[in-house]
């Protein structure tokens, strides 16, 4: 796999930035193709995938809990006065649930995951690259792309949907507490309202797109780390650009996937 090289090391002009933009697109495309070529070939490195899933899950569990809770709480607090004004406060549990399940949960979980994990993978692989650890792996006859990249990308793809479902549950609970502050509401009634307002077409596309987001987080972090150049400065650059690029791609793919979802389930619109 030969990847095009970015221009670094001097003050970049407009042409350099355009060149780097297309280099990233080309490099990322080649990297994706290599991933699919190698992901289905043995050895499958299942213990490594499990190890990364465990690490990544633990790493993001806390921040996903806090963010999910706050999103649910704030969403309910902001919406409650408006809905009450129009005499539609009964719809509040359903509104919180629908917003969180269809859009806020998947996208927020993915963006937090990108911030925490994409940068982590970029920095880890980047430092392995500049300290010749990836070369050391290669000379011992181990395929570093398979061992380092494929395992991490599979792990991020598998773990993000689980984190998203967890975040949705926490956010719905946060919404309940927000309502409870201002009015008395039975928890059973709240949960029944939530369940009644969510349909298959709300839940499945919302969670399904997080597989794509998880893949983006993994592949972008791994690409930036694996192709790091320029010593410790390069590691910092890899880590930062991984977050920016992953977040941007998550939002772009969200737009595309929402359009596809509405095309497949027109009633959702």
């Amino acid at each position: 796999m030969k990847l095009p090289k970015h221009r670094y090391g001097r003050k970049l002009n407009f042409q350099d930035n355009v060149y780097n933009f297309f280099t990233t697109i080309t490099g990322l495309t080649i990297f994706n193709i290599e991933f699919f070529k190698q992901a289905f070939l043995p050895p499958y490195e299942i213990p490594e995938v499990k190890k990364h899933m465990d690490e990544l899950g633990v790493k993001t569990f806390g921040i996903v809990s806090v963010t999910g809770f706050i999103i649910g709480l704030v969403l309910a607090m902001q919406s409650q006065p408006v809905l009450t004004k129009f005499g539609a406060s009964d719809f509040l549990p359903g509104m919180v649930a629908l917003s969180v399940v269809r859009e806020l949960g998947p996208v927020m979980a993915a963006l937090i995951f990108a911030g925490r994990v994409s940068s982590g993978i970029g920095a880890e692989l980047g430092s392995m690259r500049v300290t010749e650890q990836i070369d050391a792996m290669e000379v011992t006859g181990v395929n570093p792309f398979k061992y380092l990249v494929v395992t991490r990308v599979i792990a991020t793809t598998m773990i993000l949907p689980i984190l998203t479902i967890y975040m949705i549950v926490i956010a719905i609970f946060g919404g309940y507490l927000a309502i409870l502050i201002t009015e008395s509401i039975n928890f059973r009634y709240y949960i029944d309202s939530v369940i009644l307002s969510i349909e298959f077409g709300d839940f499945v596309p919302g969670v399904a797109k997080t597989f794509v987001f998880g893949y983006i987080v993994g592949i972008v972090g791994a690409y930036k780390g694996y192709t790091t150049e320029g010593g410790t400065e390069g590691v910092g650059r890899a880590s930062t650009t991984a977050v920016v690029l992953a977040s941007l791609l998550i939002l772009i793919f969200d737009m595309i996937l929402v359009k596809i979802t509405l095309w497949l389930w027109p009633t959702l619109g």
Partner: protein
Amino acid sequence: MIEIENLSKSFGQLVVLDNISLYVSEGENLVVFGRSGQGKSVLLKCIIGLLSPDNGNILVDGKNIVALNLKELNEVRKNIGFLFQSAALYDSMTVRENLAFPLKRNFPNLTDKEINDKVEYTLELVSLEYAIDKMPSELSGGMKKRVGLARSIITDPKLMLYDEPTTGLDPITTKEISELILNLQKKFNMTSVIVTHDLICAEIIADRAIFLKDAKIAYEGTIEELTKSNVPFLKNFFSHELIKA
């Protein structure tokens, strides 16, 4: 053991190796000298297939590295050890895991006990058995080099490539590491190619030395021949090295 024919390698406009031919016999220790940026490490990386040459052939044990696919290349690499300048120990693994890694990957039939015994034996060879459960961040520069050396020889390679094995070490540790390399080479009858600036290291290890200059092998001979040469460039180079030593 190694036969290099008309090897050339450039990076953009910069010609690093220009039509180099070289032969290293089995059991020989060849030292590669040269100023910084003269292509010494590039030569090693071409030999192990980390860099692809622009032209030429590299035969290791009769197999042309340049013409092999990745699977075949990995088979050849199992018989080659490579000690990196920075030792390149895996940060996230202990010393034990670092040494066990190439064994587990290349010899899947070995039991955990066999791997553990081999790791302990190899660490004894480099006198670091007490550091077996330490992390690389807890080791000194010299210890890292020793662990890197142990990891390189754990698969019993026939050929060892050393990229600046003593850079950054004090003269006493340099001598210790150089003697260790020589002892291991004699014990296991390995062929070695050593890239270095270090005259102490070269004097202890080398059977023969080459000097890379302007992308070519400019001088060749024993260490004594090179250090006592009347060529002004060599005189200048080695006088600086002696002052440093």
